[in-house]
């Protein structure tokens, strides 16, 4: 294995661990201790997608995410401390406590934001891509959504327009088999979701979303095509939601064994770890060192965020409009 590849794999590994540990902290500490409000949608099990995709992007490429966006944000380089702070409603949050788990945003990282209104983030992504194109820039816009979103009218309108106007958007569908409780068989008229954009002439490509290398390679090709030819790409990642839809979900709708047996075996972090160990990219002590380091980083971010200040109540009245109104 070339050093470059080794480095890349270790980057993947670190980034996936960061997401995993972040989400485990949300699940195991924030949730039972009631340190956040509303609901939080965990990315556990889907880490390979955000990490593989983001490594195929440039730093100045844009990301428009969903309600399940912690992983997308972390992969794009949003600070875990700012994210924990936000999820716990503190002024040090990336949105100063106005947004919470479902509205993380960091303009400086070009993590444009989460938009939890299903389907509605695709027109926004297409519009951003229009601006990019109009500016003559070669940035691309990565638009994540769940398989539930392809049934929303807004997705359809955006996909048609992006294809028609040849806009540099990556439509990235994470098919984790469920939209809350509704299995994909009960939401989509066809099951080969890579064909859900044939109506717009978009040849979708189906990718194993548990294999970070597969994700990365597919994303690299798609990003290159989108960037060079200024046109949309459409990728569908097969994945699985390891946890409930959100942190309060009792998961009455899916058989317990399903989660345990078939899918646990496809844990993307374990798969990568195993692959790296098997082909001697790393040894076990190295993986342990990585795990320890990232876990410490996450622990520290959380501990610091937990002590961060709350916004004053009347701060609620800020940011409704810009101050400068006429240029």
């Amino acid at each position, binding site marked *: 294995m070339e050093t470059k590849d080794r480095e890349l794999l270790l980057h993947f590994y670190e980034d996936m661990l960061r997401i995993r540990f972040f989400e485990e902290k949300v699940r195991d500490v924030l949730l039972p201790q009631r340190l*956040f*409000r*509303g*609901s939080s949608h965990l990315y556990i099990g889907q880490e390979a997608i955000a990490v593989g995709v983001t490594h195929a992007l440039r730093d100045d490429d844009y990301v428009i995410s969903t309600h399940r966006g912690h992983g997308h944000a972390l992969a794009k380089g949003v600070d875990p401390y700012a994210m924990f702070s936000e999820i716990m*409603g*503190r002024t040090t*949050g990336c*949105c100063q*406590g*106005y*947004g*919470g788990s*479902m*509205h993380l945003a960091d303009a400086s990282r070009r993590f444009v934001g989460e938009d*939890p*209104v*299903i*389907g509605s983030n695709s027109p926004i992504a297409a519009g951003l891509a229009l601006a990019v194109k109009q500016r003559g820039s070669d940035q691309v816009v990565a638009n994540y959504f769940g398989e*539930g*979103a392809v*049934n*929303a*009218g*807004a997705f359809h309108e955006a996909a048609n327009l992006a294809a028609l106007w040849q806009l540099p958007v990556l439509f990235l569908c994470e098919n984790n088999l469920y*939209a*809350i*409780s*509704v299995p994909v068989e*009960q*939401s*989509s008229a066809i099951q080969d979701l890579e064909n859900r954009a044939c109506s717009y002439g978009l040849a979708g490509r189906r990718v194993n979303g548990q294999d970070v290398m597969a994700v990365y390679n597919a994303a690299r090709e798609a990003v290159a095509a989108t960037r060079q030819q200024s046109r949309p790409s459409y990728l569908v990642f097969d994945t699985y939601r390891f946890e409930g839809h959100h942190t309060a979900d009792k998961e*009455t*709708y899916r058989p317990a064994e399903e989660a345990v047996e078939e899918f646990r075996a496809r844990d993307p972090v374990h798969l990568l770890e195993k692959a790296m160990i098997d082909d001697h990219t790393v040894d076990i002590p190295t993986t342990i060192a990585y795990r320890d380091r990232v876990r410490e980083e996450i622990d520290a971010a959380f501990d610091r965020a937990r002590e961060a200040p*709350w*916004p*004053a*109540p*009347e*701060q*609620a*009245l800020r940011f*409704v409009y810009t101050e400068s109104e006429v240029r």
Partner: protein
Amino acid sequence: MEKGRMRNLTMTAALNTALREEMRRDETVIVMGEDIGVYGGVYGVTIGLQREFGPDRVRDTPISEMAIAGMALGAALGGLRPVAEIMYCDFLAHAADAIVNNAAKWRYMSGGQYALPLVVRSPAGGGGGTAAQHSQSLEAWFTHIPGLKVVMPSVPRDARGLLKAAIRDDNPVVFIEHKHHYTYKGEVPAEEEIIPLGVADVKRAGTDLTVVSWSRHLTLCLEAAEILAAEGISLEVVDPRTLQPLDLATICQSVAKTGRLAVVHEAVLFGGFGGEIVAQVVQECWGDLKQPPLRIGAPFCPIPYSEPMESFVIPQVTTIVDRLRAYLA
């Protein structure tokens, strides 16, 4: 009205009871929406219905709000009595064309050829940290649209009786629940009870001030009334229950007695339904009013996520008490 056996039910259970009773009574009643089948709805209102009535009458849909509402309308034209659930009232925005441009007007545009027996249920409101896109109170949008009825129950008994009336109504009804009020409990008659749309209910009698409120905020006003009663201030709390049609007569009757009006709602004050009530009462009860009516509602900002800010924005019992006390001082 109070005689007969009563059961203590949550809002959720009361709504579930209404759906179940109406589905048993009339097989043209169907329920459709996201996650309403096995899952029983994200707030549990449809729990057990799919088991009892089967997947044809209790239909899980994809995330397609335009189609949920549009198909409900079509199904109503085709002889069913659909009850559609839109998971959050914010997403009524997606369904607005079907509800407002088509359902509300189809009968009218056809010169009275059709009836549209259709209910769209949706939870509104904040208070639990669901932030700007999952917390709005948009009743004012729908009260403004001729052809729609708008129901906003505040207690389980009303929730059950009004939902039954809404399902039996031959007109499109927007039925707005409150997502942080589902566990609120109250007495519900074991027997059948239909509460007609368009009839307000005086939830507490009093003499000093008429307070009009609805949905979850009505119950906060009742708490405020209790607190103020201890200070010797007597509030009359009127629950319109349906905002469209609005039972102005009951409100005016109360104002005639108290000489004062306060309207309290969770929605943004500016452009909220409180303005309509104030304008109508000022028109009708000018001579009775001893001072300008008071409106309490959310300030002009979206619902923020963080707790201190959200509690500042959504009128709390203490705020209501303070504002009413100051108003009467």
